[in-house]
């Protein structure tokens, strides 16, 4: 306790002191007039204004995690980085799994979020969610992570219901030096990576990377060692080619392989009717992508992208192979001086092969699905380019629900250079997943008793008539720049969902004789729940001095779910209590000396009522020292405030939740 108190004092000191002596701390500008023009042209500047302008003109709730944020957070994996984004819920389940969602409906199998890495969709049609444990990169190679909360369905398509996460890596043209990193600590036991850059005859640029890490077991609530250690290896290449003046070609690919340990409890049909075991999840996969960009005349651009993605995942429940091929075309152009038009076509094929276990099976075990899509959007500029009306819609055809239309209307008003006010109404759908159509899963076994002398197994069956979940979203936002070094952003939303998933009784119980006699109580997925969610998200970024940056975020969220009158589902409405009502964070980046960085971040997450997870504070600190241009070392301490705390409860038929521990690591980065 006294430790946490001291650290709080320290944190306050770290934040307040620079204010007190700020005028002295403010960097003296290196006398740039002494540099030659050539030298000036070689200076890397710290902000890219064009992108910033684009972002501030977005008609949606957008947040960007920059390379600086990634480096200075000290975080070591992609899921944890999302804690910085307002409106997102990120919870550690065990050492290698997360529960992540945007604007509510958080669960181990969250299904309303679309995640793209360099334009490649990484959500799995198996459950319409994301296997976060295999979504990784060398974090140093990420240029930015753009997160759109709210529907992005018009441009991105189905599943972009509550948000779109777009991870973009640095172009090989811009990665200049080779880099080796290595480190280790109490939880991130050992990690390392290497990147090498090269050029091909001044037209092509490439980088090759490899990385690996070994993460330690977390702990059980009683403080014992949990069984959820994790190791992962990956490597890849990205190459960018300047074919002609306006033609850019990117070809990239990755390969990965890993092993995750977990503890799961599964129902069995013989005594003791449930069995807890520790076992491995083996994962592997790879992808290759090619993207061709052509800039035509002013404001006109063509994009053609094709990728192939393979994933393999083998755990106690199933073994899944999945191949995905995707082709996309986009064209944007200016029509007259008032219309900015973007349209596109896409086709995706996904084929899987799922081997069953005693608990989970799929019927059929192989399935191939096609998705055809097209979209059109027009941004109309009005009132002397101060008011922008965006109209657009996506039309897609999928093998589950046939045609889906996802339109939106957006309005952006720029009454003043420092104000951006936007509003949007959009429709989005979450199309059925492979599981909701085809699964057969034993969720629980009731032991025999005097009334029923046989074990009774509750089994959920997929439902081929399961339809899409629908959302109509109403959003309003304001971006305001009170002074040049400060930005404020507020977004509020009201979401109306219909036909959310429920689990309903399906016919009368029946007896099965193999492998031993038992009774099956059949259930199936239906769309018999409606809901409303609403909330507000606020962020501020303040850069009071060149050497100090302060970012804050606050999220308020509420959900109300209600069953339709035909529903007999007892549990699904409880999901309204699966998201914290309040969250906030403060992140401070301070350059203490020209080559020493001291960074701290505190995150608060409210209790999760439905799961009896208490609220918690997370405090992370980082000290980075640039020993020379080439060598940098850093020390990071995470979750300083308590020895361990839970963030999310176990979900039936998935890994046993563990608690996250206080941890520390050291890291060295060498550029060559």
């Amino acid at each position, binding site marked *: 306790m006294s430790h946490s108190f001291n650290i709080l004092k320290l944190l306050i000191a770290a934040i307040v002191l620079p204010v007190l*002596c700020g005028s002295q701390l403010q960097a003296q*500008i290196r006398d740039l*007039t002494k540099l030659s*023009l050539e030298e000036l042209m*070689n200076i890397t*500047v710290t902000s890219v204004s064009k992108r910033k302008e684009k972002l501030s003109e977005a008609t949606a709730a957008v947040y960007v995690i920059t390379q600086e944020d990634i480096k200075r957070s000290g975080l070591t994996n992609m899921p944890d980085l999302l804690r910085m984004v307002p409106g997102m819920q990120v919870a550690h389940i065990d050492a290698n799994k997360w529960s992540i969602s945007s604007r509510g409906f958080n669960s181990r199998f969250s299904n309303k979020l679309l995640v793209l890495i360099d334009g490649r969709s990484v959500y799995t049609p198996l459950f319409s969610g994301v296997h976060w444990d295999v979504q990784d990169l060398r974090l140093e190679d990420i240029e930015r992570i753009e997160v759109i909360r709210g529907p992005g369905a018009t441009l991105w398509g189905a599943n972009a219901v509550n948000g779109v996460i777009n991870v973009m890596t640095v172009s090989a043209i811009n990665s200049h030096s080779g880099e080796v990193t290595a480190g280790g600590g109490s939880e991130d036991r050992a990690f390392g990576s290497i990147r090498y850059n090269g050029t091909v005859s001044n037209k092509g640029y490439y980088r090759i990377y490899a990385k690996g890490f070994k993460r330690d077991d977390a702990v059980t609530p009683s403080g014992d060692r949990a069984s959820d250690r994790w190791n992962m290896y990956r490597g890849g290449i990205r190459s960018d080619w300047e074919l002609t003046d306006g033609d850019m070609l990117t070809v990239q690919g990755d390969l990965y392989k890993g092993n995750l340990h977990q503890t799961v409890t599964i129902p069995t049909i013989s005594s003791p009717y449930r069995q807890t075991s520790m076992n491995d999840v083996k994962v592997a996969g790879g992808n290759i992508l090619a993207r061709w960009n052509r800039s035509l005349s002013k404001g006109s651009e063509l994009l053609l992208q094709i990728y192939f993605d393979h994933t393999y995942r083998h755990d106690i429940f199933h073994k899944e192979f999945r191949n995905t091929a995707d082709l996309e075309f986009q064209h944007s152009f200016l029509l007259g001086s008032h219309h900015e038009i973007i349209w596109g076509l896409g086709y995706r094929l996904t084929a899987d092969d799922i081997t069953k276990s005693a608990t989970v099976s799929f019927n059929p075990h192989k399935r191939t699905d096609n998705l055809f899509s097209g979209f059109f959007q027009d941004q109309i500029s009005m009132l002397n380019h101060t008011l922008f009306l965006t109209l657009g819609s996506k039309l897609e055809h999928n093998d589950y629900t046939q045609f889906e239309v996802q339109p939106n209307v957006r309005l952006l008003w720029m009454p003043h250079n420092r104000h951006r006010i936007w509003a949007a109404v959009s429709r989005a759908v979450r199309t059925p997943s492979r599981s909701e159509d085809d699964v057969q899963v034993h969720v629980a076994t009731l032991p025999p008793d005097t009334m029923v002398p046989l074990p009774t197994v509750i089994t959920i069956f997929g439902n081929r008539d399961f339809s899409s979940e629908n959302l109509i979203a109403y959003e309003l936002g304001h971006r305001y720049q009170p002074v040049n070094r400060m930005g404020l952003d507020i977004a509020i939303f009201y979401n109306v969902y219909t036909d959310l998933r429920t689990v309903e009784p399906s016919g009368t119980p029946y007896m099965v004789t193999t492998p031993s006699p038992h009774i099956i109580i059949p259930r199936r997925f239906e769309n018999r729940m409606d809901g409303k969610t609403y909330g507000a998200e606020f962020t501020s970024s303040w850069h009071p001095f*060149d050497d100090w940056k302060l970012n804050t975020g606050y999220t308020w969220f509420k959900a109300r779910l209600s069953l339709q009158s035909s529903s007999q589902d007892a549990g699904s409405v409880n999901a309204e209590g699966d998201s914290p009502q309040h969250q906030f964070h403060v992140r401070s980046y301070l350059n*203490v000396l020209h080559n020493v960085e001291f960074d701290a971040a505190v995150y608060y997450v409210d209790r999760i009522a439905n799961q009896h997870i208490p609220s918690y504070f997370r405090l992370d600190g980082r000290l980075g020292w640039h020993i020379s241009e080439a060598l940098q070392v850093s020390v990071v301490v995470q979750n300083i405030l308590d020895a361990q705390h839970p963030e999310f409860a176990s979900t039936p038929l998935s890994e046993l939740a563990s608690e996250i521990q206080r941890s520390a690591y050291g890291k060295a980065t060498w550029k060559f």
Partner: protein
Amino acid sequence: MESFALQVFSPLMALHIFMRISYIVIILLFSSALSITQTISPTEYQVKAAFLYNFAKFVEWSPETFSDTTTPIVIGILGEDPFEADLDTIVKDKNINGREFVVRRFQALKELEQCHILFISSSEQKDMPKILRRLRNSGMLTVSEVEHFAHIGGMINLVVEENKVRFEINVEAAEREGLKISSQLLKLARIVSEKENN
């Protein structure tokens, strides 16, 4: 086996180390605050301000734009000022051939007075053609940072490419106003002309 690693890096130990270092940092911060001079990487606008200074060095105005040999070089900013204090800091106490610098700011075109270098802010982007028409025969060196500026009759356009500042020069536009641009500047610039755009 792993106990060694645990002893070396037990969470508590790490915490102590971190706190020690933190205290040292705080003390450093407090005691040396007065003497810290920073050489962190400059911001985009600090670099752009240095470019403006260099333009003054490598451009020759017609003599009648200066009333005598010590008349200062006036840098004007039209529209919203992206430099904040950085431009003033850069040119403070500097002189070129005995001429000092004066920075002036103009909110709107109608307030505009005679300058030597006029930086037209991106806030004026939509009025750019109108502004450039108004500036004909004014003898000012026009500089901006919006797309196609030099193609539509502006003289120097600053562009950020791959986080580095580059510049485009429309030589004809400068010559029309009687400005002479040194070859040292021209050889580093991307030369553009109005014809390309039509």
